[in-house]
């Protein structure tokens, strides 16, 4: 058990009788990239929202480094080192790229009850924001408003913001959503570069990305995990083929 950086015990979420997640027992091993896949409506985003703390579970428990965090609010979990990205791009459109990153970093620099000094002159924040921008190839766009970025770049910024404050766990909710094959390849490489430094739970529909990145895969169908294993194990799992891969390959 001690190897799991994040794990759940019989995690359930019901919406007025409708089961969105049923008895999830998800284990994220330190340093792995763990893909969570499943058809639309399988409960992947619900799972992420429960792990990050936005949705209170109906029952079950969530552990972070073996410490229970089931009732810990979102911002405290973020401070502990569980960081998430959103399926719907949630960057601050009216701030520049650098301001977006600096704000994300600022969250981990103690409290922000400083009322006098101009934030733009904070060299330490700016320096770290620049480094993060560089890592994600956003350095030419420093001064651009995030709202003016191309969609693919916005998605990169979305992911870059989750890295601020050096978290332990990344919960990435469809980082490749809507960026097309070229951008998807680029982002796959970027995420591959993060391997080992972070434990990543990756929700993704792009199967090329999933197979390229995942150390292990869990398959979620109708709110339940029907299989967990390595890429090959999942590929060859009959239940999975029947329930999921079968139609996705024909429909994608």
């Amino acid at each position, binding site marked *: 058990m001690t190897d799991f950086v994040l794990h759940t015990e019989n995690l359930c979420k019901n919406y007025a009788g409708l089961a969105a997640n049923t008895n999830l027992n998800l284990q994220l091993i330190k340093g792995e990239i763990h893909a969570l896949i499943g058809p639309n409506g399988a409960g992947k985003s619900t799972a992420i929202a429960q792990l990050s703390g936005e949705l209170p579970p109906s029952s079950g428990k969530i552990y972070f480094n073996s410490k229970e965090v089931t009732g810990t609010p979102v911002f*405290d979990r973020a401070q502990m080192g569980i960081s998430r990205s959103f399926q719907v791009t949630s960057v601050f459109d009216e701030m520049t790229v650098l301001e977006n990153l600096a704000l994300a970093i600022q*969250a981990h620099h103690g409290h922000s009850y400083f009322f006098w000094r101009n*934030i733009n002159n904070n060299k330490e924040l700016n320096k770290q924001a620049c480094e993060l921008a560089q890592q994600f190839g956003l350095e030419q766009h420093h001064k651009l408003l995030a709202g003016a970025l191309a969609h693919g770049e916005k998605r990169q910024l979305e992911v870059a913001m989750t890295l601020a*404050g050096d978290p332990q766990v990344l919960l990435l909710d469809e980082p490749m959503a809507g960026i097309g094959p070229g951008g998807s390849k680029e982002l796959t490489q970027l995420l591959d570069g993060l391997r080992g430094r972070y434990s990543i739970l990756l929700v993704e529909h792009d199967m090329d990305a999933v197979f390229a990145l995942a150390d292990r895969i869990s398959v979620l169908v109708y709110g339940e995990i029907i299989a967990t294993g390595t890429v090959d194990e999942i590929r060859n799992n009959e239940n999975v083929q029947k329930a999921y891969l079968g139609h996705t390959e024909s429909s994608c």
Partner: protein
Amino acid sequence: MNRKFIFLLSALIILILLPFVAEAVDESYVTSSMSRVLIFAMAAVSLDLIVGYGAMVSFGHAAFVGLGAYVAAILSFHINDGSPVFSFPFSFDGSNNLLLILIVAMLVAAIVAALTGLISLRTHGIHFIMITLAFAQMLYYLFISLDTYGGEDGLLMLGRNQLPFIDTANDTSFYYLCLFFLVVYIVLSRRLVNSQFGRVIKGCKLNEKRMQSLGFNTYWYRLTAYIIAATGAAVAGVLLANKTEYVDPGLFSWHLSGELLVMIILGGLGSIYGAVIGAIVYLLLEQVLSAYTEHWMFYLGPFLIFVVIYARHGIYGILQNKVLNND
């Protein structure tokens, strides 16, 4: 020296010269009524801090103006009356010292804002509007019921509060006092919105959910901003009471809260200077139009609609696009 700096400097110079010009053309009432404009500008700036920067649309901001005004009136009432304001747990006497009154007013506003904010900031959007309105109306009726302080009739002050070295009774010095407070308040507010705290507040406005997932406990940041805005409104309230030497429960009414909102929307949300411009334009229009007709609101309405539809960032937004940014 960019255009914006020149614009601000000339605006300041005009405001400094105004009393001289008014006296020269023998219209010295202008100075007095401009003091009122400056005071409202300050209240508008304080509201802009939460509405424009923090997306906390308070429909009860007048309550803090009213509290400030009543602190001034009540403290000076007790100094004339000779009785203490309260005698338990310690005796607190009335005062005519403007500095002390300002501090007390800010403290009272901060406490009330903290208590009401703790509840109202658990809500968002329309519910926040309603709950702030409800709290302000509660205070409105509370002060109507305070017979000691004039109830519905209000409370007349026997002269203005005093400051060392400055004759507050003189309308021209009082005007400069208001101008001084406004300028200081603008400078402080500009610092605030450009500070680390200010960026957090802007983030909460743009996407509070994301702010929380980044690790910000947004509730306490928003509450702090709410308290800061309330203290600014209280200072404006103290000055307003001193300006008119009279307070009444109408200061708490939703009518005044609404007017403050109109001012900042007219001037342009989230720009500080916009709030000042909005207050000036609104009150001047009120003054000019009401000289012709009692139904001046009827003419102001279309103007407001025009500004909202064609200038999303208000009058200051137009200024910024057309004039100030052409360096």
